[in-house]
């Protein structure tokens, strides 16, 4: 428990001219009694103080009534906040796996970084929203930071009571270079171990450190394929009849979205899923070109859809900053393979093409999507039309 009383409550006591010895008594007993008790004392003092002052100095009545109201409102707020358990009491972080992951970098060869695969559980009997997790990776020998990974887990939909999130893969930004693979790096004589500390929070509550683990000397590149392969299925797929369906990856798994309705996909086999709404069966298979096929089977009818792939040169022409307002721009960038988009103050998300000009972006955790349609106006200036939740905005490129 915090050993210092709430500053606002102390300030109110001083403002109400509480005797110094009373403030000292409350300070002394606060670590044992807590915030609720402290605020109750402030409220009692405000009430008794107002009554006594009213008898002695009636002219001060209005000022005291205002102060008593302020104390009441502040106390109610503080007690309500105190009633909500903190992040440490609310969330449970389970480190499912740690290890070393090979990240391919086209120009510099592989980078071998420490990773942690975690799941978060809501331990309380009520839903929690705004769940975030942050992993800080450090070299075990000298504590030098190897980067951190912040990830919202259930920003808007939250976690239901007792619910556990899907796997969240947290990766360091730095690691070992020079080795041809993660396995080779781990075997190297100068290999340096790492530790990961996992912090979590919800709502506006403070971060709590919920896990601290040594990173296993294990190459998890192949083992994490399933987690990463789910990401690899995301995109827009064009069916033979011209219909485009979207595969989304949300916090609880894949969804099949079409005509504004999204059906949850439950896993039936490593690359096969069943749509909950209508029992459609979807099987994904990679193509040598890097594209993916989805075979959709329903009531004996089989359709094979191909993921929409747009040549890199056609994609890269939309790179740039798009003006949302006088002070805000949306950045469309390139991660080496895909277009990305970054709204002001938000994370970077990949853009999934539905055609050369139409894209969708999904906020993995917020369970929301937006449509972006790029075009060029009569003067040759590019612009983008952004549609999200029924709202539409036009943003010209800078």
């Amino acid at each position, binding site marked *: 428990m915090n050993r210092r009383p709430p500053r606002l409550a102390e300030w109110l006591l001083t403002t109400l001219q*509480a*005797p*110094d*010895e*009373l*403030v*000292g*008594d*409350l*300070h*002394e*007993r606060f670590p044992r009694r807590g915030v609720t008790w402290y605020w*109750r*004392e*402030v409220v*009692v*003092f405000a009430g*008794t*103080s107002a009554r*006594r002052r009213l008898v002695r100095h009636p002219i001060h009545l209005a000022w005291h009534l205002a102060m008593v109201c302020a104390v009441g409102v502040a106390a109610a707020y503080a007690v309500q906040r105190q009633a909500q358990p903190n992040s440490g009491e609310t969330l449970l972080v389970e480190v499912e796996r740690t290890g070393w992951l090979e990240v391919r970098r086209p120009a510099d060869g592989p980078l071998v970084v420490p990773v942690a695969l975690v799941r978060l559980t809501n331990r309380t009997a009520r839903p929690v929203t705004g769940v975030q997790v942050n992993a800080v990776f450090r070299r075990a020998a000298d504590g030098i930071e190897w980067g951190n990974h912040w990830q919202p887990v259930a920003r808007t939909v939250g976690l239901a009571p007792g619910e556990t999130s899907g796997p969240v893969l947290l990766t360091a930004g730095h690691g070992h270079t020079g080795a041809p693979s993660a396995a080779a790096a781990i075997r190297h004589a100068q290999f340096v171990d790492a530790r990961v500390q996992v912090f979590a929070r919800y709502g506006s509550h403070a971060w709590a450190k919920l896990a601290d683990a040594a990173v296993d000397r294990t190459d998890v590149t192949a083992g994490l394929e399933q987690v990463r392969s789910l990401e690899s299925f995301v995109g827009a797929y064009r069916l033979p009849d011209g219909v485009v369906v979207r595969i989304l990856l949300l916090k609880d798994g894949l969804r099949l979205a079409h005509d504004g309705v999204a059906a949850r996909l439950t896993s039936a086999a490593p690359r096969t899923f069943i749509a909950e709404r209508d029992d459609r069966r979807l099987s994904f298979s990679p193509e040598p070109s890097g594209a993916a096929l989805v075979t959709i089977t329903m009531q004996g009818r089989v359709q094979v859809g191909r993921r929409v792939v747009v040549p890199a040169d056609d994609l890269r022409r939309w790179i740039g900053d798009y003006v949302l307002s006088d002070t805000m721009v949306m950045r469309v960038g390139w991660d080496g393979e895909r277009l990305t988009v970054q709204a002001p103050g938000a994370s970077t998300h990949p853009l999934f093409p539905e055609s050369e000009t139409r894209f969708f972006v999904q906020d993995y955790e917020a369970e929301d999507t937006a449509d972006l349609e790029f075009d060029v106006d009569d003067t040759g200036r590019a612009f983008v039309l952004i549609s999200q939740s029924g709202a539409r905005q036009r943003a010209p490129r800078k």
Partner: protein
Amino acid sequence: MSTVLSTLDLLVLLAVLRLDEEAYGVAIADAVGEARGRPAAVATIYVALERLQERGLVTSALGEPTAERGGRAKRFFRITPQGVKTVRATREALTRLWDGVPALRRRPS
């Protein structure tokens, strides 16, 4: 001036007597709370102590500031001879009232 104390004032004075040299705000509040079976707000106790001091039934003196109190001193209270006399007077008044109610009179064992 009334020579009979209210229930809270009586409890506070009795707590000051019992605690002797350790009679300060929060300790008195604990003793009063324990006696009546529900917590007493420290602020309420201070109001009672201020009232008793104005009536000359207790005196007070500041102790040394300590870190655990945020650098603030304790104020120790002592009962005055007038305070002891008032406690006795209150007890006698209560006893007389008590004895006047047959239903509450203690039965011989």
